[in-house]
């Protein structure tokens, strides 16, 4: 049975699944990368995702255009990011705790809105598969990478975009400076708080899309707590990726591929208890982290609220 795992078809299957599974993680983790690079740890990603997922679903369910739904999800995500900004930047609250508060708020509110505005599990027709012309005709690779819905492509597109914004724009420079040495940035007239607000809002928007990618992309339903803690994994992936877009991509792919692998292991009937198989991605993430930690790249001001002059 084990040899079945190493057939070409299975390997392609694993890659295809992994590429798709990574989508929500990518959006959410890239958004969180912005926030963390500017020095804010936002543990509330899962709550922001749920709000985004619900909003997108609600718009689509009521016959709204799918892109309008995505826009609405971004908008609501941004608002959640703004809320986190008020609490953790302006009020300088402990970031870990405020993140948990934001998570609970998003979890509760999205379920509440679902109950009152929709009331039962329904499905919508979300973004259809969009086989990219030419590219999807490529053998093997075409199927693995270019046979998904448009939000999947968008997620991968966000990787170079994030890297570009962080490394090649004046705003990205401000983000990096604020996250590493807010006093220095402040002394040059860069508003530390404003930068952090903006990154939190960007992070919220991307978390909103991450939610939308589930509710109107991959699953086309909304259910209470449908992310099931996915946002927390996304936060972990930012550490995993050493705060770089490419690293986040690597982490998201690794986690998703191992998840796809364990699904295949089960489907092929390889005799490993299912619970052990399900554990695999989590165990592996810790192991890989243990082996590859590079503390030096952590934004020095991460989790530290900034207050001028002491």
């Amino acid at each position, binding site marked *: 049975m084990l040899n079945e795992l190493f057939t070409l078809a299975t390997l392609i299957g694993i890659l295809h699944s992994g590429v798709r599974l990574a989508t929500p993680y990518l959006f959410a983790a890239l958004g969180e990368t912005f926030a963390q690079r500017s020095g804010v740890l936002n543990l509330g990603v899962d709550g922001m995702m749920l709000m985004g997922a619900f909003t997108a679903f609600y718009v689509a369910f009521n016959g709204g255009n799918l892109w309008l739904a995505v826009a609405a999800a971004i908008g609501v995500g941004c608002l959640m990011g703004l809320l986190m900004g008020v609490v953790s930047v302006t009020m*300088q609250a402990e970031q870990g*705790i405020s993140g948990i508060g934001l998570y609970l708020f998003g979890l509760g509110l999205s379920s*509440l809105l679902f109950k009152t505005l929709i009331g039962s599990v329904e499905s919508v027709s979300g973004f259809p598969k969009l086989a990219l012309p030419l590219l999807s005709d490529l053998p093997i690779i075409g199927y693995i990478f270019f046979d998904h819905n448009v939000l999947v492509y968008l997620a991968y597109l966000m990787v170079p975009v994030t890297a570009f914004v962080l490394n090649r724009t004046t705003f990205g420079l401000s983000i990096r400076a604020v996250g590493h040495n807010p006093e220095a940035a402040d002394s040059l007239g860069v508003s530390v708080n404003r930068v952090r607000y903006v990154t939190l809002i960007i992070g919220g928007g991307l978390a909103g899309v991450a939610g939308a990618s589930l509710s109107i992309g991959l699953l086309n339903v909304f259910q209470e707590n449908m992310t099931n803690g996915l946002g*927390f994994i996304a*936060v972990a992936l930012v550490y995993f990726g050493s705060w770089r877009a490419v690293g986040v991509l690597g982490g998201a792919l690794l986690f998703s591929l191992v998840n796809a692998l364990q699904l295949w292991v089960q489907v092929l009937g390889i005799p490993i208890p299912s619970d052990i198989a399900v554990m695999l991605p989590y165990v592996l993430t*810790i192991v890989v982290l243990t082996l590859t930690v590079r503390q030096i790249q952590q934004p020095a001001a991460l989790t530290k609220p900034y207050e001028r002059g002491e």
Partner: protein
Amino acid sequence: MAAHERTQFTLDRITGAALPVLAVAGALVVGALLLLMLGVNPFTAYAALFNGALGNVSGITQTLTKATPLLLVGLGICIAFRGGVINIGGEGQIILGAVSASAFAIGFSHWPGWLLLPLTMLAGTLAGLVWGGIPGWLKARMGVNEILSTVMMNQIALQVMNFLLRGPMLDPAQIAAGTNIPQSAALPEAVWLTRLVPRTLFHSGAILAVILAVAVYFLLWRTTIGYRIRAVGLNAAASRYAGIPVSRYVVLSMALSGAFCGLAGAVEVMGVHHRMIEGMSGGYGFSGIVAALFGKLHPLGAIPASAIFGSLLVGADKMQRSVQVPSSLVVALQGLIVLFVVASDLYVRRRSRRRMEERE
């Protein structure tokens, strides 16, 4: 001038003291908007909340039953925070503590009660200690961020429980009946904790938790170990310079934190459920953090804080029942309360700093 200063000081004290209350009130006001959205009269709802939590024997005992694991977990969180680490892995530590305690009690059920009971607690405590110690060790030795590893380890613990409850630990009676309910056999009665009020779940674990809260206070502020934990938490560099083995204390803080969470799991199965079942924790690992925070991360503060937070949770559940609002409202409300309380903390800190500067 002096009189003026004294008035100012008193005013400061009152506002400072009232802040957490104001924060909770603020959260409830926002919650009232949600209630109005649902077409529910907020006054009726909140009356049900307060009355449900504290209005009768049932409410009070439920609050205290709920406060027990919150306090135990909260104590663990206090230790971790004082030691400069953040333990988000309470959930996994509770689960494994409960699993381990149950397995021990069932496995050695023929042992005399006076021996079995403390050892069962110890088994749970040790499981939590190990499960908390691992991320501590990973942080101290490998530099793995503990938020990350504990998040992952919660999931792993959950699957370990799934595995054990449908296989090795599955109740033989379930196998015989063919019903496959994922739960362990009942614990021997010798390890059941005494119910303090008949016909309620309120059990003697609450007394243990309060005693331990005092013990943790002594540990942190009256012993050399606690001194070192706090020193490492406040300033690892200075502690290193002073010859304190910092990594060892990082591991210790996490391990002790895990131990309290593990004990909370053991006490839950011994006091409430009397067997290992899924859903025995259901979020104490997170709400314990909130309770500890309410108590300003002080073990003695955690006692009233867990009672208050427990009353909020119980009351909110009762509110859900009596006015039939979706349970998610309660979750949203909980989130709001956390956000308001942490945000209000700014004023407390500003005030204390100002006071310090004035003194100089």
